């Protein structure tokens, strides 16, 4: 049976931690998470990793495989040429807990602040499939946070204080475009979620395992809403003359 050489990050701090090399037998159709489980089960029971479904439905096993933000359960070993070392390391954008596990609790704090679904009081709950196709695309999100990991506003500039990140623009787009939602989140998007920091480099879209068109379908339409609401020159002119409507 062929062997893979896995270089896995081990440690409780990025500075003191190091890559440890393991040789793992490779079966047909194997994914990186299988290799990590092999290490846990046979070589090193202390190796820390998050996982749940092993079917790309829960978004738990996010890591950087050969530097690329990936779900380990979806990353096939045969994608890499035989003999090539495969490095697996934790997401860079979030604080390290241990080995491949990072502290993603910041995301849950952001989510709490989002104004929730608020249906129109007179809603009769009839709506057509074509009216929800877009919303259903956003609701495919499995919260793997790979988009958060790759976004340079968070990854390189660490603006977690002012920027909600692509995951939560997707969530807010799903709320804003729900046919029966009655709230307007434009001000929240502008002043509290930092939508303006996004300069649509589309990195988030590239890494999304659910293939959600994050930039084109969620972020750009939200930016348009904010522009319409706050920067429309005609509206601004009227507002100046007649005061706030």
């Amino acid at each position: 049976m062929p062997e893979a050489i896995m270089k896995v990050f081990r440690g409780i701090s990025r500075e003191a931690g190091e890559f440890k090399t393991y040789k793992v037998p490779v079966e047909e159709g194997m994914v990186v998470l299988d290799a990590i489980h092999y290490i846990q089960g046979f070589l090193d029971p202390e190796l820390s990793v998050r996982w749940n479904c092993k079917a790309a439905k829960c978004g738990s096993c996010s890591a950087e495989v050969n530097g690329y933000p990936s779900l380990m359960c979806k990353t096939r070993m045969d994608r890499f040429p035989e003999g090539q070392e495969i490095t697996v390391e934790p997401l860079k954008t979030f604080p390290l807990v241990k080995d491949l596990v990072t502290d993603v609790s910041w995301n849950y704090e952001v989510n709490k602040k989002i104004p929730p679904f608020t249906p129109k009081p007179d809603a009769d709950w009839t709506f057509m499939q074509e009216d929800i196709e877009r919303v259903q695309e956003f609701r495919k999100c499995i919260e793997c946070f790979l988009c958060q990991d790759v976004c340079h506003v968070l990854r390189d500039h660490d603006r977690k204080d002012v920027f909600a990140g692509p995951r939560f623009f997707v969530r807010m787009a799903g709320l804003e475009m729900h046919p029966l939602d009655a709230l307007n989140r434009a001000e929240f998007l502008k002043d509290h979620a930092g939508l303006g920091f996004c300069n649509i480099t589309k990195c988030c879209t590239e890494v999304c395992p659910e293939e959600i068109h994050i930039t084109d379908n969620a972020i750009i339409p939200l930016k348009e809403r904010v522009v319409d609401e706050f920067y429309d020159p005609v509206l601004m002119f009227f507002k100046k003359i007649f005061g706030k409507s």
Partner: protein
Amino acid sequence: MADYEVHEHDVLVVGAGGAGLRAAIEASASGVSVGLVCKSLLGKAHTVMAEGGIAAALANVDAEDGWQTHFRDTMNGGKMLNNWRMAQLHAQEAPDRVRELEQWGAVFDRTREGKILQRAFGGHTWKRLCHVGDRTGLEMIRTLQDRGVHQGIDVYMECAVTRLLKDGQRIAGAFGYFREDGRYVVFKAKAVVLATGGVGRMFPVTSNSWEYTADGHALALRAGADLIDMEFVQFHPTGMVWPPGVRGLLVTEGVRGEGGILRNSAGERFMFKYLPEATRKDYAETEDEAKRWVDAAIAGQKTDARRPPELSTRDNVARSIYLEVKAGRGTPHGGVFLDISYQDAERVKRKLPSMYHQFKELADVDITRQPMEVGPTMHYIMGGVRVDADTGESRVPGLFGAGEVTGGMHGANRLGGNSLSDLIVFGRRAGLGAANYVKALNARPQCSDDEIKAAVEEMEAPFKRTDGKNPYELQRKLHEIMSTYVGIFREEKDLKTGIARLEELTDEVRHAAITGSKTYNPGWHMCHDLTNMMLAAQAIAQSALSRKESRGAHSRLDYPDTDPHLGKVNTSIYLEGGEVKLKQTPLPEMPEELKQLFVKKEATRNA
């Protein structure tokens, strides 16, 4: 003694899948303080993997449907061993719970009239499963999660409860640890709702995630509750069989609901020959009739054709596949073929998107062009904590339960789609039951230092053993025992061997050891999870040995027939002096007006 932190709540909910979240929302809405503990991150619980849909008699697609028919299907599917009251409440309340999800933001697929769309599933007379493609569980958990976080529920993520604390007979709280750094925690709580799910990780081929280590089953037993129906383990007929790394991964029943056809390696559509006599007339007789049913379903039209034989109940389809493979008519990787490729490719991708991606990415199979290879996978346990149908309370005052960890609702076999509805119907009821219990309580029960000390020592022990066993190796032994002796088909000598080997393994598990620190140490966590699985494994094996008949998911080679006498009893498992004990207890008897539903057969045919 090691330090621990303390949190105080009125109600502590253990588990944050559909049942736990729904219980927490309801308890919190009743005005009590709620803590919610989950072993994983919020939103990752096993509910997220549910695919095909949620059963509720909304009658949006088939106007003939109603709670009585849903009730009857559920009881028939459970081979009449269900707790009738649970099955009744479930059928009556599921539609309201589904509408409520929609009002909380869930976005279900629509009918042409803009109502919630419903699809066919095994054992359901009418098209009854509300769904979002094949990711219904994700929709449900996200909806409940977002509802919950705006309601002031305190969520403790990546936290495992290892022991329930009591004050005399009453629940007083729970002890656990945080996975992140291993720090200990005591939750002082007047009531605890168990919503910990199932037991699948004791089997090597399972659709269940790592979390399913029988935690709630073991916690309840140790706290003095009893488990019923533990012999009934559901093997889902269609798990992936290849490649090895994904063996057991679920292939939604929705594939068959949308017209998927099962064939053996000889090309035979074998389900026709396995239909039980009692229900044969509900199913198509010929391939042509089955095709007319599928065509009509796709077109959204009525038909007099009956549903395809692939929509038989899960216990029956799983056994049939097992027998076909055993008879040498299996596929190259030891399964059978499940084929939906005869349908329009775009429709398949739209209706079953995650199946399409799952097979394409993990198995190099394009399901719009080729058949899938599938075989049985351990999926669900019908048995669990015995609770009151209306309130979810166990026989331990202050201990409640909801969802897969409880027993009774599904009897001897669960119908697909009845689990998600179970979660929200009984999650709500247990949350309400716990809140009402708390409000009626005069004083806060006290946690004893001795109990906490014992709980700490239990968790510290694996680090102190120098000659101990590797917990992963022990889990592999457990896998081997369960799959060899307590599988789909059972017989006395196997079960006896299995029980003896489980006893030996229980001794070994007491010596499980781990090195390193407490910081996110999965081997350490496994040491404790194993003790839970060993208890539940014994409960399953002993219950299976005691039930000398075949009924639903429990198939005995040495007792192939159903015994009417045993249809009137539940198998109850409890602990006495630390030993697993078993007795049979009478099945609650259905009132006369419900019995009538089984006398009158509806004249209408299934559309």
